[in-house]
């Protein structure tokens, strides 16, 4: 990459930052001038201070660990189930038709609607959150991987048949590699969903993680701390997306592009 391109990128970033920074400064000035008294708004400087305090006493780090642990475990379990079912439905038309009604009946249930049952059955903690996140993550992976398997070049399947590959090897050597770029897009989509669902479960019921942190800060009338948690969740979501996009590019190279248009 030439120096010029780097300079251009930096210039672009600086320009893009002008508006949000100006808005923040304006809000800060307004908050100071009007002696803002609110239980749901706080001056940006107070939010930054609260964020620093939450880092200093490790509370936000512990909450981040809890949320990400639940989100990623749920994502992993949901991905495995979704992928297995997606491949099976993609390969077998009969199975797909047999299961269609069942899948379409369960899929529209909002994962959050399971909370009351999940609370009684599983109690507070990671388990309940993981189950709900996994439930939410199964569907996008299932549907996209089913579509991915179906759109595999038919000649590849013919080759596997000509080679008399056993079913397991056919899945392992032909289907997964061929469908992987599109499956990864589904995984990226689900990763976003996992974080949203994990935080929502914590806001609604579970007394751990970043969502519970927001609720506790709100109930303690600490609008600054509540907004600090909100900003931090935004940062995590942004970082997660960057990591996944970079991973997608590095793992699949040009194939990643075809996946994105899927």
């Amino acid at each position: 990459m030439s120096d010029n391109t780097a300079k251009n990128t930096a210039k672009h970033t600086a320009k893009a930052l002008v508006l949000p920074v100006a808005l923040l400064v304006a809000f800060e000035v307004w908050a100071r001038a009007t002696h803002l008294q609110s239980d749901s708004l706080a001056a940006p400087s107070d939010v930054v201070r609260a964020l620093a305090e939450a880092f200093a006493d490790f509370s936000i780090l512990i909450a981040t660990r809890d949320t990400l642990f639940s989100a990623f475990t749920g994502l992993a379990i949901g991905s495995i189930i979704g992928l297995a079912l997606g491949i099976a439905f993609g390969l077998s038309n009969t199975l797909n038709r047999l299961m269609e009604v069942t899948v379409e009946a369960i899929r529209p249930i909002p994962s959050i609607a399971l909370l009351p049952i999940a609370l009684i059955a599983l109690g507070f903690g990671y388990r309940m959150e993981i189950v709900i996140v996994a439930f939410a993550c199964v569907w996008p992976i299932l549907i996209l991987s089913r579509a991915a398997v179906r759109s595999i070049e038919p000649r590849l399947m013919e080759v596997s048949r000509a080679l008399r590959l056993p079913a397991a090897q056919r899945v392992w050597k032909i289907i997964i590699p061929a469908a992987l770029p599109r499956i990864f897009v589904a995984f990226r989509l689900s990763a976003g969903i996992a974080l949203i669902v994990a935080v929502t479960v914590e806001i609604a019921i579970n007394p751990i993680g970043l969502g519970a942190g927001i609720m506790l800060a709100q109930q303690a009338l600490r609008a600054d701390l509540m907004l600090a948690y909100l900003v931090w969740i935004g940062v995590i979501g942004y970082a997660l997306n960057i990591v996944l996009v970079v991973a997608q590019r590095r793992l699949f190279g040009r194939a990643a592009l075809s996946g994105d248009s899927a």
Partner: protein
Amino acid sequence: MKKIIATFAVSFALTGSALTTTALAQAKIQVGCTATSDCASAMVAVDEGIFKKHGLEVEMTPIGINSNIPAAILSNSIQIGGPTSTVFLQAVDGGLDLVAIAGASVMNPVSNGNITAFVRNGITIKEPKDFAGKKVGAPGLNAFLHVLFVKWLVEKGVDPKSVNFVEVTFPTMSDIIKSGGVDAVLTAEPFVTRMTNAGLGSVGARYAVELARTDPIIFYAASREWADKNAVAIKKFRDAIAESAEIVNNDREKASASISKFTKQPIELVKMTPPNRSVPELKPEQLGWWIEVMSSQKMLQSKLEPNKLVLK
């Protein structure tokens, strides 16, 4: 391909390792309460080592919404919870086998004085019937303050159906009153003072003062199964709560410090309002009034027997 599988494997390993840490520490009794001063006796007993003195290992769990407490007890996430009388009775009426084990807070002239219907600027309430046609925000529909307010309206001859109730949580009250989203909110201290000082409106009615009740607000409850198996622990719990209730009622400094520690509210804010009166004993007849009021508001389907609801 191998690289990809390795990536997945690493992420699995990372997530799996943390699972083991969760299953630990089950021996402790978890007490779940919302971020109010009602469970102050448990908070003080934890902070002052009173539970320890009685041989109990107790930890407090903050619960966001009071109506989640019965489910949390049944799932054994918490062994003892602090539901409001309304939440407890509705849960039992719905078939959950809960039992009250000790008293936490009760209504008294001081706490009743903290409860008001706060009206926004531009709205005048001279008498109860002025609430007709108004939009009133309650922190929980069919929850403590809502039930009390409806009871007050009925006593004053106002049809509760003429009032439009919506749910407004405590922390959002001042902003919603300011924006005119509701005409009044059913609230309590320290919100009343904060909103009054900010010039957002005025007190429209002191309905709890007029009702002048002394019934329980919140009490400690457990599942009957756990209570039956842990009679000794409950005896110790009651003794500890009786000791710390004295501190809650007589030592504002200590009580405020513990409340602030558990609710994470700034200590200056906690000190502004005296904690609700702590009364460790709970008698079955104290639930009678609630059962009657809730039945008249058609919130209970079955006929509840107070004697069976309080552990002897």
